[in-house]
């Protein structure tokens, strides 16, 4: 794909069983002025989605909570869903996850499995389209909740003070332009800092194809250099 103008929209398969959520995502995708996304399959189960036209989708969008667990996501349910994501990632699929379960542990487990991005439910309206587009191109995308979970992860890579501060303000809810004004730097630099933190985080934990692709893309784009991701001595 790369940076050429998008002639064909990015195709999306959606694993979700709640009609309201499906309607919401459908309308957000339809409302995108560039019509950059096309929803080609929706189902409540991963296997159903993949067996139909969804098997060819560029990106899989997935709700972490499904019908069999209304009362709350239990630990084993999380493990099961994370195992699903791992299997999908290992089958070379791009997965974007959203959930109302925004604990640090769940977010980190999802990212460790190799998901491209994690969105808290309340972030979906603002970040869904961009997160899916970025995932299709192996570019880093980081909504605020995911940023917080990465900043407080003991295993996170070393960050510069500037990178940490940009991410902190972003997590607190500032717009990137506000972060830039607050820090006295350009907005593009803020974007770069945040994207770089996401890219560096891709080398943490379980190795996965999506993570390697994300890192390769980040190096290609000049976001990080190879020295940034060599093992720490």
């Amino acid at each position, binding site marked *: 794909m790369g940076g050429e103008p998008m002639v064909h929209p990015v195709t999306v398969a959606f694993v979700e069983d709640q009609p309201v959520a499906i309607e919401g995502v459908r309308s957000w995708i339809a409302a995108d002025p560039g019509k950059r996304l096309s929803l080609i399959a929706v189902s409540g189960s991963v296997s159903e989605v993949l067996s139909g036209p969804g098997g060819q989708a560029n990106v899989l969008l997935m709700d972490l909570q499904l019908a069999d667990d209304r009362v709350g996501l239990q630990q084993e349910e999380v493990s099961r869903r994370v195992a699903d994501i791992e299997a999908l990632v290992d089958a070379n699929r791009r997965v974007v996850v959203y959930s109302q379960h925004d604990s640090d542990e769940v977010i980190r487990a999802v990212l460790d499995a190799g998901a491209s991005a994690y969105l808290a439910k309340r972030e979906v309206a603002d970040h869904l389209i961009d997160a899916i587009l970025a995932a299709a191109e192996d570019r880093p995308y980081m909504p605020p909740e995911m940023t917080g979970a990465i900043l*407080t992860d003991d295993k996170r890579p070393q960050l510069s003070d500037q990178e940490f501060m940009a991410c902190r303000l972003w997590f*607190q809810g500032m717009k990137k332009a*506000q972060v830039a004004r607050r820090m006295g730097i350009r907005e593009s630099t803020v974007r770069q800092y945040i994207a770089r933190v996401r890219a560096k985080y891709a080398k943490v934990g379980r190795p996965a194809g999506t993570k390697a692709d994300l890192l390769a893309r980040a190096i290609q784009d000049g976001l990080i250099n190879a020295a940034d991701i060599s093992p720490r001595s």
Partner: protein
Amino acid sequence: MNVPADPTTAATRYVQAADRLVVVIVATWHLIYDPVAILLNAALYRSLLPQLVAWSLLAIIGVIGSVQLLRTTGSTAGRWGLVAAAVLAGAFSTAALPAAQPVLSYANWSFGAVGWWCVLLLIRRPVVELGIALLAHDTITLAAIVATGQADRVTLARFVVVCFGTGVLQLLPPVISRLLGGTATMAEESAQAEARIRGRRQASEAARVARVRRYQELRRSVVPVLAGLADRTLDPEDPTVRDRCRIEYARLRRLFAESDDVEDLFMHQLRACADLAERRGVVVEWATSGRVPEMPTRLHRALTEAPMHALAIAQSNARVTVLARPDEVAVGVIADASSSLPPVSIDPDVVVSNHQEGEQLWVESRWCTR
């Protein structure tokens, strides 16, 4: 074993001192007194070999018993087995004396020695067990006296005197050990009880001081507002006065929350700061990441102060975030509010920042030890 296992208590130290004393007595006895007795009387024995065997057996038993005592290892059954072995070694040595040799003589060195082995092996057992062991040993010696036809009145009288004298001496170490240990335990318990009472008194005093200090702080901030409203020097129509009232309300709420017994006291206090805002209909969104480390109330207050201000004056929505790492806690609030009273840091360890852009106010209080 009826001895406290904690090696740090005074009782344990006394008991261990008694143990060491007995080990020293047995070692000295066996390395100096016994060899001298055997060598000086070497000519009297029919053969030197049984004496050397008995001496060696007692040496082995002495080493095992000493190690077990000092390391507080070994079982009761094992200990009694060693007692039996020591008593039999003594009997063997006595039996090997020439028939004409008086049992109560310097040549029968084992008679005086074996009792100390019993002390070594049984000092941590009830005293009556040591009494039984000593009695058994004395009985065997008495049997030897009778068997060799030496049981005349003088010998028997000497035997009784010797048994009584050494018996009393040998029963002393365990008795003293127990007395000292018991007394020390009692002293320790009463010292601990006293410390507990003292601790409670200090805690309640500290709580009282903290309460007085809090009320003094409130008097500085809340009372002027209330007094101003009462004497009409403050106008309730004035937006600044309203902001002050909201902040003081939040301060009171936070104060009440400080003494609540909850799992996450910091978040509890922060929620208390948002309480009035939420009651006013402000939509408060929360995002927390990481675990807030243990920290003193002073830092809780300093970290919640600026967010409390921002929440008190928020108009319709606010996002409160907590980003916590072991060495850093950052509390951020973004709200639609104009800060008429810019928040300031109340603690040198907490940095407060604020940033106003149009109607949007961002404040952050941050504690960082890096």
